[in-house]
């Protein structure tokens, strides 16, 4: 079969080394809890930012909504594990599971139907999706409640730790799925807006989500989320291993996607939308799918984040904070996976770690004074980000060599 690429081997070895070293240092307590938490947050931030880089850096859609989807993922996953550990019920799991599944099915069905209608305007399509999805959600809730007890019993048959782990992993994936589905519905009408307006509309999304979370106990009726007081009692299940696994999968996923015809279609839209559509690229479809994938990653990262500190507060998802992934993506270099991952870790380590330690006592408040100055200097010196569009060999797409001459002629005749 195919020989495995040298760069792939290097990447796998490198990744394994990073994992083992951090894990060892952490178990030997050379990395203390303070720094370990920062590493976990950096990993979470890397996944969120990779999602944004896909949307903005590779697809060219200026989105400020990443934190909205991050929040949705976080609260969704947290609610599932909270109900499991605190209320000993799988109701959260089953309800969200059915919502995710039924919504996905209805979206696909409606899309099939809509694509047959020529010239349907976006708003009408949106109204159709919305009506059908709301019906699906209603059905899903009923269905989920119906099977909640049997599933709870089933999971209780397993050892407690295993059951919890299963619930945790599914919760994180469901967090991503719900975020992705919301992003589909929200993206549908607004993806037709021009670049800046799309940014503003997504910023609006972040703020709307934050306000809803502030009132989650009163307006939405989720008592356990406790609104603006912050949600407590979420099991702290996220550790370095999980962060590593999810980050690793995310990087490989993005790398594989980008180095395929689909990835090239996504990037072509950033490069020149008119040229892309004239070359047969279904621009609205790829814009939507990229937005959905990016939001899925944000939601998944949210799920991971919720289980780092075991505490969620709506202020974490305020729009001021929502600039963080944007800053990281631009810092690392738009359209560079390497840059985004590096910048995420660098950003978290410097801002949360080094600046806290370096600044003398009584100067802690200077942290956010120094940070924007660094930001400014950085932008003035390197307006294209640290890495520009550099990628490590594993991620970089490789231009295949030309075949030898004799073979060539035969081939070109076939084309004719």
């Amino acid at each position, binding site marked *: 079969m195919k020989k495995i690429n040298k760069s792939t081997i290097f990447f796998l070895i490198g990744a394994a080394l990073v994992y083992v070293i951090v894990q060892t240092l952490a178990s030997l307590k050379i990395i203390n809890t303070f720094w370990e938490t920062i590493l976990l947050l950096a990993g979470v931030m890397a996944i969120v930012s990779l999602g944004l880089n896909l949307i903005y850096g590779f697809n060219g859609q200026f989105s400020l909504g990443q934190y909205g989807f991050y929040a949705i993922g976080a609260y969704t996953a947290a609610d599932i594990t909270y109900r499991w550990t605190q209320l000993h019920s799988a109701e959260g799991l089953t309800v969200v599971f059915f919502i995710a599944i039924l919504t996905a099915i209805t979206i696909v069905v409606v899309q099939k139907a809509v694509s047959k*209608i020529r010239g349907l305007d976006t708003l*009408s399509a949106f109204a159709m999706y919305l009506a059908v999805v709301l019906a699906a959600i209603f059905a899903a809730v009923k269905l989920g409640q119906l099977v909640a007890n049997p599933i709870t019993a089933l999971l209780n048959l397993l050892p407690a730790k295993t059951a919890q782990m299963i619930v945790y992993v599914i919760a994180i994936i469901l967090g991503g799925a719900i975020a992705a589905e919301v992003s589909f519905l929200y993206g549908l009408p607004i993806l037709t807006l021009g670049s800046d307006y799309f940014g503003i509309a997504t910023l609006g999304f972040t*703020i709307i989500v934050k306000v809803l979370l502030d009132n989650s106990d009163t307006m939405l009726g989720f008592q356990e989320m406790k609104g603006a007081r912050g949600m407590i009692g979420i099991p702290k299940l996220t550790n370095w291993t999980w962060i590593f696994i999810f980050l690793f999968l995310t990087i490989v996923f993005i790398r594989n996607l980008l180095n395929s015809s689909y990835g090239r279609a996504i990037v072509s839209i950033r490069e020149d939308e008119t040229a892309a559509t004239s070359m047969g690229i279904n621009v609205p479809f790829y814009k939507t799918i990229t937005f959905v994938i990016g939001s899925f990653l944000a939601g998944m990262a949210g799920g991971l984040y919720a289980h780092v500190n075991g505490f969620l507060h709506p202020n974490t998802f305020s729009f001021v904070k929502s600039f963080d992934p944007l800053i990281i993506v631009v810092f690392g270099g738009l359209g560079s996976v390497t840059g985004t991952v590096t910048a995420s870790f660098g950003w978290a380590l410097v801002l949360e770690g080094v600046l806290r330690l370096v600044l003398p006592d009584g100067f802690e408040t200077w942290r956010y004074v120094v940070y924007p100055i660094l*930001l400014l200097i950085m932008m*003035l010196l390197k307006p294209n980000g640290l890495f520009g569009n550099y990628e490590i060999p594993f991620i970089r797409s490789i231009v295949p060599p030309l075949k030898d001459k004799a073979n060539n002629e035969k081939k070109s005749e076939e084309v004719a």
Partner: protein
Amino acid sequence: MERKNQNPIIQWIVKTKILGILFFVVIGAFVIYALGQALTNNPSLFLQQVVNGLQLGFVYALIALGYTMIYGIVRLINFAHGDVFMVGAFTSFFTISRFNLHLWFQNLFPSFPAMPAQIIGAITVVLASMAICALLAFTIEKIAYKPLREAPRISALITAIGISFFLEYFGALNFVFTPNYITYKRPFEVKSWFIGPSGFGTIESGVTSPSNSIIFSNIFVIIVLASLSLLLVLQYIVKRTKIGKAMRAVAYDKPTARLMGINSDAVISITFALGAALAGAAGVLYAIAYPQVYFTMGIIPGMKAFVAAVVGGIGSIPGAFIGALIMGQAETLSAAYISTPMRDAIAFSLLVIVLLIRPKGIMGEIASEKV
């Protein structure tokens, strides 16, 4: 690839866009019904909210003008604009409480009638804040935006966010504005009046106003007058003066403006200063109306004003004004009738709905891209 729609019903749905229209009609009808109910149930409460909304809207308008002018000329969402507004409020706080700037005229001419003297003092306070803010924005533009004019647009946006953080957290330092909520001292005394079925009259302190009447204060009057006069001044500058015309020329077509000998960099700097001056004035007025200043006070009003500018059609001055008035109403009405914490969500939902109906805002022109 047969793509003809056979079904006449589907064809009709597509042609009339009925579903999309229905969607908005349902929302619109609900809102109108709710507002109608509110008005008939308790007219004075409703009108009181409208008055409060106007007061807020006029302040937002001043901030929104800066956003819209700056976006119009350099296509930059200047996230630091809200913080310039905060600096304006704090400047007036210091000029009033440290330097008694609002009393200078009274101190100089003690025999002058108190009322006009107070007004002169207050105007001085506003002008001082405007000047400081203009200077600040001018400097910011030179340091943080001008070097990036040829760089990707996102770089300038990131520096704008950086400047915003810097102004907030530098302000939060103990020897600057402090991280505390500070009570603001108004440069004049508050007087309130009521108007309603029982007529018109002054509200004395400690006396409740007659029921079913609308209360408004001299703060309301001052905000409306100040905001309107600044709008007129701005309109005069932009429409009548040479520099204003140059601004519009640069905003429309920078290379051609340069071919006329217009120094586009200078014009951009002036635009920043002008926008900041208005934000500074808005800061003072806001602090007078809601007498508390703190280092993050610029974020939410800044955001609302920005939304107002977008709703009105970014780049359009009358649009910003209309958008701001709508935002003011939306905010007070939703706070009064839905729930206070929800007002931000309502404001942004409104934004999204407006963008869906008119993608370039109410007064924004729809330019077609040349291929």
